[in-house]
């Protein structure tokens, strides 16, 4: 069974790119348009990996990560956040919120797949 990935991003173009990239790599992808939508989908189902943007309307990525770590079904689920910030501050905040790793935008499709493989393990 292919691993299930939830991508959370308010940008339709980024969602499209991540979905195409990850489905081509054999993963089952579910999309959410912002943190609130993402959290509701996390509450409703189980995922092996979450890839999320941080800056989003309604609920930002950091809040969503904090909330998802409170869900018993998702403690320990790897969470990758997308960031354009190259400074360490946002990374430290996201990690404190419970993120596993990050991917710096702009990213190429291979690096997204590589990171998904890395955190999902073999």
């Amino acid at each position: 069974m292919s691993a299930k990935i939830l991508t959370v991003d308010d940008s339709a173009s980024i969602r499209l790119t991540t979905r195409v990239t990850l489905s081509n790599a054999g993963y089952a992808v579910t999309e959410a348009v912002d943190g609130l939508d993402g959290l509701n989908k996390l509450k409703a189902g189980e995922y092996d990996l979450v890839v999320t943007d941080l800056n989003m309307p309604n609920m930002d990525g950091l809040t969503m990560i904090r909330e998802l770590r409170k869900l018993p079904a998702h403690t320990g689920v790897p969470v990758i956040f997308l960031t354009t910030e190259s400074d360490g501050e946002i990374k430290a905040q996201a990690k404190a919120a419970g993120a596993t790793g990050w991917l710096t935008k702009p990213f190429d499709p291979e690096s997204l797949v590589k990171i998904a493989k890395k955190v999902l393990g073999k």
Partner: protein
Amino acid sequence: MNNPDPISVFRTEAAELLEQIESGLLDLTRSLEDRDQIDAVFRGLHTLKGSGAMFGFEALAAFTHHCETAFDRVRKGDVPATHELVSAVLSAQDHMRALLETPNGDHDAMSAALLDNLHRAVNGAGSPTPITTVIATNPVVEKAGGLREWRIRFSLPANAMANGTNPLGLLDEMRDLGDCRIIADTTKVPELATLDPRGIHLAWDVTLKTEKPRSDIEDVFIFVMDDMALEIMEVAVDPPATALVDMPVAKAVVVTEREAPAVQAANDSKQAKSAENVRVPAERLDEMMDRVGELVIAQSRLTQLAGTAADLGLRSVSEEIERLSGELRDTMMVLRMMPVASLFSRFRRLVHDLSRETGKEIELITEGESTEVDKTVIDRLADPLVHLVRNSIDHGLEQPEERLAAGKEAKGKVILSAHQTGGEVIITIKDDGRGINRERVRAKAEASGIIQPGATLTDQDLLQLIFQPGFSTAQTVTNLSGRGVGMDVVKKTVEALRGTIDITSKPGEGSTVALRIPLTLAIIEGLLVRVGQGCYVIPLSAVEECLELSLEDDLRSRGRSFISLRDSLVPFLRLRELFRTGTQPDPHQKVVVISTGSERVGLVVDQIIGDHQTVIKSMSKLHHDVVTFSGATILGDGSVALILDVTHLVAAGQQQEAQLRAAG
């Protein structure tokens, strides 16, 4: 898959974002302090920058980055939202549209002017902050040069797993890099009682041989690098042996120490092939056996103590010692083992001599000579075997003419064989002679008062009579046997070795005597049981099964003392009554069914405690007439448990059965 073109999706999205930004900015012109609008504009700019860079709109992304930075400062309260700023971003936003529509057009002059404008709005009419473009700096790629060895030591933050990091994944990634040797350092693992199973308490030492550069190793830890302890050191490959010895973990050193002697031993054995056998006085082996026995007792006390202590360190040492003493004991047993060939070889001469003396033609066949038995067994069995072989030849085998008349070959056969089953070795002496004449055995036994005239006996009981003291059926006393001493001595010797004797005999076809002897003498596997207050050991090799004595069975059987076991009735003995413990029986009594060859008997006990490795201590001379017990042993807590004599108990059980049967 029919997916839309991401770039056209982005254009649509960017147009929406720009509208969103514009309307936000227009709202801000009315109320400058509107936090929601400030956030919305910032998010719009942020997304536009990020997505723009993704889809090749570098100029747009770079330009938008500056507007985003400016709004980020407003958002964080670094600079106030002013009308100048809002209008600067509004005009910048128009330029973004142009950058979006004609990404390859010449916009540089316009961009510079607008940014200048923006900086003035943010910083006042001061010095413009230098325009910096975000360029991802590629890490310097090290030149991959040949195979290098790295020593990597790392530990992860305790909450790493809760945050989605899989330590095994990291180890797997390192394995993918090259030849990898990983040792977990468990010294920081807390006691079980205080252990948080969700946390990571291990550290790892990795020796990695790879052609990949250092940056590839660092990449494994990229997400956790800031929060973890990580040391990556290159090891000089030249003297590879030092790599392990230098490992900063005690465990690794232990491993090296263990391997080194093995290598040494291998070298030695190559050099010294000629000196493979060492002759050692037997008593030294016996002494050593005693020490090993003491060690096993001490070890079982340690195991018991450690089992109740919360000290993890003590427990792991105790488990280590348990394993080592077990291995030592096994090695010791093997040292004492000798092939029965040394026992069988002496019979060739004996048979040859007997053949000449009796005029019988005899062929001696030996089988299973490589079967190994404890040295003591070999020593002690020599005489009884001589006696049994003599008996077969003297009483069993017929004269050649008698054999021919009976349709047999003139040459009689005596087969000596040995084989191992489980914890026992079975030695059989088989002949194809006339077999044992039951009538003569009975007549002789009645005449010498061993049995009452006309007593009912099973066939096996009847045959076993030949082992009674003072029994001999030989009509003429020959030089070889039939002196009436011997068979009872044979039986005693075998029983002293905790063995049993079975006889089968078919008139006209021959007899077989089978000796079942336990492989080892000093240490046995036992089943520890409790009867009343005392603990007793039943040799495990004799135990067939354990079952519960249900109250109904108990009541029904009272007076008769039989249990039905798969359609056969097995007599049982209540050890509580036999030992006169004077205690009330436990509500759920257990029956341990023991057997000696073909005979079975159940022993009723109060509790079955479990498997127990027992070092047999013989009982003092004062107790030499105690038949129910074959020895004693010391338990883990230092108390003494008696070892039940299975042969005697089975006999007692069968006797009880016979009495009940006789009584009707």
